[in-house]
């Protein structure tokens, strides 16, 4: 058995099996042997990945990890198959289809322990908040979210949200509080 480092117990890990399978469609790389199964060896498609970290949150064995390098302005995403149990939760959690599962031998995870692959590491540039200048998300994530919002035609709320994707949630809360302050200021006037 590979050393299992417990991460956070969560409803995904302790809950019922999910029905995660999304179309794996035309994906680059080793698309040939990809399957739509609940379990299997994870495969990561960098092109689709936005580093939202859902896979890392879902991963119980910390095979997938996130690290923020503030000096370089990078988010580091890592996958170490040594720790992976082929549970498939990362693929289930992935919102973009970047995590897929590859059909593997009957040996499962144990087989891989004997045949270690080097850990995979991906870097994602971070976005600075237009208002406070702090990092708050990856560029790709912001662009992905914006593209989703752009599809919402005629939705004023989505348009407002789109205009503000460049601002971090902390600053948005601050602006909301200041707006409340303005309302209160008005109320005091006779």
């Amino acid at each position, binding site marked *: 058995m590979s050393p299992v*480092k*417990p*991460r956070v*117990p969560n409803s995904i890990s302790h809950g019922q099996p999910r029905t995660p399978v999304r179309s794996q469609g035309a994906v680059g790389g080793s698309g040939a042997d990809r399957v739509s199964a609940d379990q299997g060896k994870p495969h990561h498609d*960098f092109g689709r990945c936005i580093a939202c970290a859902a896979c*890392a949150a879902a991963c119980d064995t*910390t095979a997938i*990890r*996130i*690290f923020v*390098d503030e000096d370089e302005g990078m988010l*580091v995403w*890592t996958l*170490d198959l040594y720790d992976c149990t082929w549970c498939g939760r990362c693929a289930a959690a992935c919102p973009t289809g970047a995590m897929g599962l590859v059909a593997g031998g009957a040996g499962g995870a144990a087989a891989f322990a004997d045949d270690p692959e*080097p*850990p*995979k*590491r*991906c*870097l*994602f*540039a971070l976005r600075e908040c237009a208002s406070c200048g702090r990092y708050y998300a*990856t*560029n*790709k994530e912001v662009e992905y979210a914006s593209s989703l919002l752009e599809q919402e035609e005629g939705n004023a709320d989505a348009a407002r949200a789109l205009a503000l994707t460049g601002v971090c949630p902390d600053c948005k809360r601050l602006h909301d509080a200041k707006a409340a302050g303005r309302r209160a200021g008005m109320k005091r006037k006779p």
Partner: protein
Amino acid sequence: MEKHMAVCPYCGAGCKMNLVVENGLVIEAEGLDGITNEGELCLKGLYGYDFINDTRILTPRIYHPMIRREKGAPLERVSWDEALDFTASRLRAIIEESGSEAVMLTGSSRGAGNEANYVMQKFTRACLGTNNIDNCARTCHAASVIGLMECVGSGAMSVSIPVLERTDCILLIGYNPAASHPIVARRIVKAKERGADLIVCDPRVIESARIADLYLPLENGSNLALVNALAYTIIDEDLADWDFIDNHTEGFDAWWEVVQEYAPEDVADVTGLAPELVRHAARRYAKAPSAVVGWGMGVTQHAQGVQTVRAIAALALITGHIGRPNSGLAPVRGQNNVQGSCDMGMWPSLYPGYQRVDDPAVRAKFAAAWGVPEERLSLQEGWKLTDLPHGVAEGKIRAFYNFGEDPLQTEPDTAQMRKTLEGLDLLISQDIFMTQTTALADVVLPATSWGEHDAVYTASDRSFQLTTAALLPKGECRHDWEIFADLSTRMGYPMHYENTREIWDEVRSLCPQFAGASYEKMAGLGYAQWPIYADAADDPDNHGTSELYAGGAFTTPDGKGHLQAAHWRPPTEEPDERYPLVLCTVREVGHYSCRSMTGNCKALAALADEPGYVSMSPADAEARGIEEEELVQVTSRRGKIVARAAIDERINGGAVYMTYQWWVGKCNELTLHAVDGESGTPEDKYSACQVEAIADQRGAEERLAEAYAELKARLAAEADRQNPPENAEPAADAADPNSVILSEGGAAAVVEGSRAATANNSSDPASSSPPPSAFAPHEAEVAGRALYADGEEETLV
């Protein structure tokens, strides 16, 4: 499900609530329509109940008496008989050797209630024969009590809390109601909406400053200069009420001799305030038809606390804003029953009901009532709580009976306090929790908690209210008054009471001011505000005196208000190059005092936890390369601690603010133990310190987590000694060290530590317990760093 009426055990607002009990556990608190809270509760009231259930989040409750047979021996569970006999014989031995003056006691201003305190002071005076009894008002409002008793006659609030809502002008000095008394802050918000003027003097932009009409951001430590400048302006611009001064005050000329040097223009350098702003504030206060001055620790916890209180009293006296409706003085008390402790004579110079110990007539009355010869009761004023360190150092105090307090957490200069407590021959701690002080004690006496006994509390505005038991006593816990009565009986002065009502009736019979406050009057949502004389007892509509000194009738010996002034002088320890920042201790809204109660409440513990914050201005933070939420090192001449930085634009430059609840980030390791010479109140609001960034944040986080887990484990191990071994084992087995982070935190960490401690059986179990696995650094972090060096890199976006 059943509901029991209670009075909130936290601040002095005196909020009425129902405790909802199910299966022997308190599961909810509901606000009741009490006189001060009108159905509202703050977050401590709403969620501060579950410590009764012994959640063991922070520290376990104690259920069985324990003793240390000799210094350095481990605590050992014994029967009540053995514990009390042991205590009695040790006390007797010390008294025989060194006299009764070698014993010092402190009352509890918290959940215990007036009856327990009354019995304790009776034990002290009638049985031990000393006046060495004090209470924690010493560290908070002692300055107000002393200053106000001299100037106007009574140390309490002259107005009621509801009056704050009706007055035309509220002047707040060194008082942050939003954090200390949210339910009082609510009155201030309502007053403001009604159109009252709000003037706030505070170096920080506190919540009330934010909504104030006039905000005076004075320099830390310049209170007296500012108050004198306000008084100067009132006289200078002829805004004083000369009729009131002529008819109801004494000492104007001598007072003016001093105050005339405090023109706002002349003290602008000291206060840091534009003279016109000070003058404007003085005009607003003086011209208001009615006005209340509220103050808190920001005034009293300075070396000139008493003098500042006198100066504030003078403001009210020269403007006549006292003794008329909706006007007066409001030193709002911090603890639910700190007013009650003072009422009950937990004061080295006062019997219950503010009757002086050096008055032979009073002594005769109490001696007769208590059935002791007059000589038995001392005419000598006793030690103050803040005399404890030097009293012990000089060998004058050998035994200390600590009742429901945690001086190791709440008193200034922890290192000195620890030395003091360790230097005692006998430390008795009667508490509900294994606190840091209790862990040092030679005798540990488990008492019932708030919610497990009936009691009368005195709210800050002199209102007696009744709190009732919601639960039966747990384990072997006994009511505080039972313990004192039993101990007194064993020491040769028999005391016996059936219930709290019997004790309370004795109090009423001895204190004319409280005579009308019968249990009937306080039943349900009833209250009785002292002075309430005997004739009020039978009149259901008479709730006593809402506002003191009606018509300028002061309760000083000559019936006049006394004007007294003093010159401002700089604080004791001024910042210098090495320690350039002013450290000021403040209040945490979600936690209370030493945190043994709120820290064991699930919701409140989740809201704020170790190591606490050190709040500083953005400029000071930037100059030190400190970023928000980083751990920083705070140092002073007394010690150094780690705290988390809160960079807050509400903070004035040159000063930092810390709350005093935290064990790891314990600001009292840093504070200076300088006291006001008259009141003995420590100068907690002003000591010099330095804040430095820590380069190794990860290491600091780890050390912090370890230190916290170790402290918790140490106290849990001490508390564990009350459990017989056969019970301890299954508990230890159930604990999975890895589960600590996932469980409710405290409980599992606790058992782990206690097992280690028992195994080692050393006097310092903390140092030998294995490093807690609970707060290991996040693995993603470690791995991310490792992989950064030799992983497979894909693309850069």
